[in-house]
């Protein structure tokens, strides 16, 4: 309550300032009516408009109505429909004075003179050159919807306004009485709103032995209270009764809805609206009444805003707790021999508790990409509309959880990529039909966890990267020498070069100088990478691979040399202890293994990571057959498999930077750090040197 009074006070204070602006503007016009400064008129318009908006919020209808008329005429002045003359200026001054009067009346809580109001309004209206109200669409602030904030006290709300009547039909059922409701109480409460007429209709054909009451009440209530307040009275009775409210005989609304023309149509529409609103709860969300205890609102989900650093700190500490716990149980079993049953049980409890805490805290940080994807859907719709293309938008893997920070920072990049896909990727309808495709283009946004990273892909079924155009454009811009011989993948990668834009005309949607290079650098800043895969005529996939800084990963812990490495379980197909006869030496350094009738190249992890020399004898190797993101199989040679467990992913990027072939790090039970391998980077390094072929090329930018 007090805050509402405060707001009202602030409103009246602001009105003083607005009136001052208005008078200043009038004075300036008075001084030089011939060359009126448009800014001056604009500021006058804004002043009156603010008064109108504020007054409508506080149900100061007289002020709002008058300000509305004033604003309309100022708008004509602004648009040049009205030419300023001495006479008009005089009316303006009078109107400004009247507005000031109305405001002081409102502030004092007294009723203004209704006759003066009508007189002033008609005087202003007579100024309007066309006699019609100007179109409201060009009103830059027209979108506001007046929101009644409690018609309290003797506010001049009902000046010149007939009180609306509500026709209420109320037919109770037997349950109403069974639940202890008494219609008479409800009607009595209604009566507190205003004069109430009650008629009752008895169904004379009703059977005597039927328990349902054969009665229908017809109520007519004259009140200025909004409909939802009436509904509130019947809130608990409504489920047990046939209940209808019709607003009838509503007077011409004194405050025309700004979006509707102030004619009779508005009244009809308002009535229709209230009918449709049904429960009417949304009509006026803030209703504070002096004589009624405020009703409890629907339970809202309460949230707390927490600094992310604090969450990170907690995650780190819980990680340490988990490690300490495992060290503790390890040393207990080591040193005291047989641990008593009680100690073992307590340790188990402790273990599960720490795990629960860890999961809980992880969940705070991770967030599904669903809201992000929904936001993107809207961007695609809007872009497609502007571009005049028909685009179907599909979403996959909405439930993939990604670090909250990632989601926030992905918005701009994804927006850009999707706009590009709609604007440049998907062809126009006729072109698509010509190419033998469906008329509507298709864009798919997908997210998935892949080998310890999150991969977000935008796939369109458009024309693909027009490599000849890209190449020509890059040469024309001097980005590459004329004689350059580039592979398809390298040409695609040119899209990520700073200062590159293929489309000749800068469109409204994309290509405003900010290009894919910005996307690329932003993704890299997140520790990710962008790849583009394109086939001419078939479409383009832009794939963003992001590290999962704080997610948990199922990993297999393996020993290579003196170090432990973590291989993501999701990539592992099988593990084999190979027969020496199955290993074939191919070339000077590469070996292959025949696994399930397939020749799989062997990758020595120790060699990749530079741990060789400290390595165990090569025959003792265990091979882990893995599948990379392209579906190719490789066998990783490791010395020993130690364990399989969930590991907490720790970023290497935050304190150090990107390490080749390493996705992230984790801390093992003994407190040691183990590196999580980035399989795709390793296999990419292998395959790019051996079998880089086909049009579907991958280029890391």
């Amino acid at each position: 309550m007090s805050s509402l009074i405060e707001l009202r006070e602030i409103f009246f204070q602001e009105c003083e300032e607005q009136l001052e602006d208005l008078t200043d503007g009038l004075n300036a016009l008075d001084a030089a009516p011939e060359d009126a400064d448009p800014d001056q008129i604009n500021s006058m318009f804004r002043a009156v408009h603010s008064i109108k908006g504020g007054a409508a919020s506080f149900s100061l209808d007289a002020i709002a109505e008058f300000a509305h008329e004033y604003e309309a005429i100022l708008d004509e002045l602004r648009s040049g429909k009205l030419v300023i003359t001495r006479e008009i200026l005089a009316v303006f001054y009078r109107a400004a004075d009247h507005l000031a009067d109305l405001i002081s009346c409102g502030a004092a809580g007294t009723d203004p003179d209704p006759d003066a109001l009508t007189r002033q309004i008609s005087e202003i209206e007579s100024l309007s050159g066309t006699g019609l109200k100007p179109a409201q669409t060009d009103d830059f602030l027209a979108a506001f919807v007046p929101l009644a904030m409690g018609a309290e006290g003797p506010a001049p709300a009902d000046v010149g306004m007939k009180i609306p009547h509500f026709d209420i039909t109320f037919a109770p059922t037997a349950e109403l009485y069974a639940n202890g409701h008494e219609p008479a109480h409800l009607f009595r409460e209604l009566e507190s709103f205003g004069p109430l007429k009650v008629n009752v209709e008895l169904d004379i054909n009703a059977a005597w032995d039927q328990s349902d009451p054969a009665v229908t009440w017809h109520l007519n209530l004259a009140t200025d209270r909004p409909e939802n307040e009436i509904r509130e009275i019947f809130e608990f009775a409504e489920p047990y009764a046939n209940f209808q409210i019709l607003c009838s005989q509503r007077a011409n609304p004194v405050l025309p809805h700004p979006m509707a023309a102030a004619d009779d149509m508005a009244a009809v529409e308002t009535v229709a609206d209230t009918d449709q609103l049904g429960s009417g709860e949304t009509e006026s969300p803030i209703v504070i009444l002096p004589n009624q205890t405020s009703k409890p609102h629907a339970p809202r989900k309460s949230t707390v805003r927490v600094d992310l650093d604090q969450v990170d700190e907690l995650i780190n500490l819980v990680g340490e707790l988990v490690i300490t716990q495992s060290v503790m149980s390890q040393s207990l079993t080591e040193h005291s021999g047989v641990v008593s049953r009680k100690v073992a049980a307590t340790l188990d409890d402790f273990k599960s508790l720490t795990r629960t805490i860890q999961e809980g805290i992880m969940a705070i940080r991770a967030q599904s990409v669903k809201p992000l994807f929904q936001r993107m859907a809207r961007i695609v719709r809007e872009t497609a509309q502007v571009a005049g293309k028909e685009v179907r938008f599909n979403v996959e893997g909405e439930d993939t959880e990604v670090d909250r920070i990632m989601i926030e920072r992905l918005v701009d990049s994804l927006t850009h990529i999707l706009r590009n896909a709609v604007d440049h990727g998907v062809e126009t309808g006729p072109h698509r039909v010509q190419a033998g495709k469906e008329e509507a283009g298709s864009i798919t946004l997908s997210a998935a966890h892949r080998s310890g990273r999150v991969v977000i892909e935008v796939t369109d079924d458009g024309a693909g990267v027009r490599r000849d155009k890209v190449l020509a454009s890059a040469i024309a811009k001097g980005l590459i020498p004329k004689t350059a011989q580039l592979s398809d993948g390298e040409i695609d990668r040119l899209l990520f070069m700073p200062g590159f834009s293929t489309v000749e005309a800068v469109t409204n949607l994309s290509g405003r100088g900010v290009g894919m290079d910005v996307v690329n650098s932003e993704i890299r800043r997140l520790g990710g990478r962008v790849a583009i895969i394109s086939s001419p005529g078939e479409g383009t996939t832009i794939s963003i691979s992001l590290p999962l800084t704080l997610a948990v990963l199922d990993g297999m812990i393996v020993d290579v040399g003196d170090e432990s490495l973590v291989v993501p379980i999701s990539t592992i197909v099988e593990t084999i202890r190979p027969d020496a006869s199955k290993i074939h030496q191919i070339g000077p350094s590469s070996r292959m293994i025949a696994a399930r009738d397939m020749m799989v190249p062997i990758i020595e992890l120790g060699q990749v990571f530079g741990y060789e020399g400290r390595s165990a004898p090569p025959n003792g190797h265990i091979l882990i057959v893995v599948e990379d993101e392209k579906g190719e199989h490789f066998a990783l040679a490791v010395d020993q498999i130690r364990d399989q467990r969930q590991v907490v992913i720790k970023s290497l990027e935050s304190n150090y930077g990107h390490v080749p072939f390493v996705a992230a790090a984790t801390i093992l039970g003994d407190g040691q750090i183990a590196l999580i391998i980035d399989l795709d980077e390793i296999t990419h390094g292998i395959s790019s040197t051996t079998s880089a072929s086909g049009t579907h090329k991958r280029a890391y930018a």
Partner: protein
Amino acid sequence: MSFEERRKSLKKIEFITFSIGAQDFCMDIILVREIRGWTKVTTLPHSPSDVLGVMNLRGAVVPIVDLSARLGLGRYESTDRDVIIITLIGDQTVGFVVTAVSDIVGLVHDDVQPMPNMGGGSENMFVKGIVTKNNKTLRVLDINNIAATMAEAREIA
């Protein structure tokens, strides 16, 4: 302590002194977060030769730099008595391996003399100045510069 003395002492910058092999150095203590004993580090593949690896510092992965190699004093030979100085440079936590940490000294700005030009070595790039204190010659290290060049080296690697 008189007011004058106190005011004078406030102007002092505290430096932590440490040794690498037989040579003495010091650095601004404001950068130092903590000092830890040597623990085994996890080697990073394809890292610059002076990055020994990463260690676990209460859940954070912290790179450990061989300060001796960084300063061009030869590669570090690990012993159990080595000490790691954990520093916070910008928003990155970095650990430096040194042989021993000896003291904390308060120095006023005038105590630090510019390093005489003795012919370039990578060592001198990272030395801000020189201090003579208690018959010892301390070189003041510019840790920020060390970290910056480390980042560069990483980019190349």
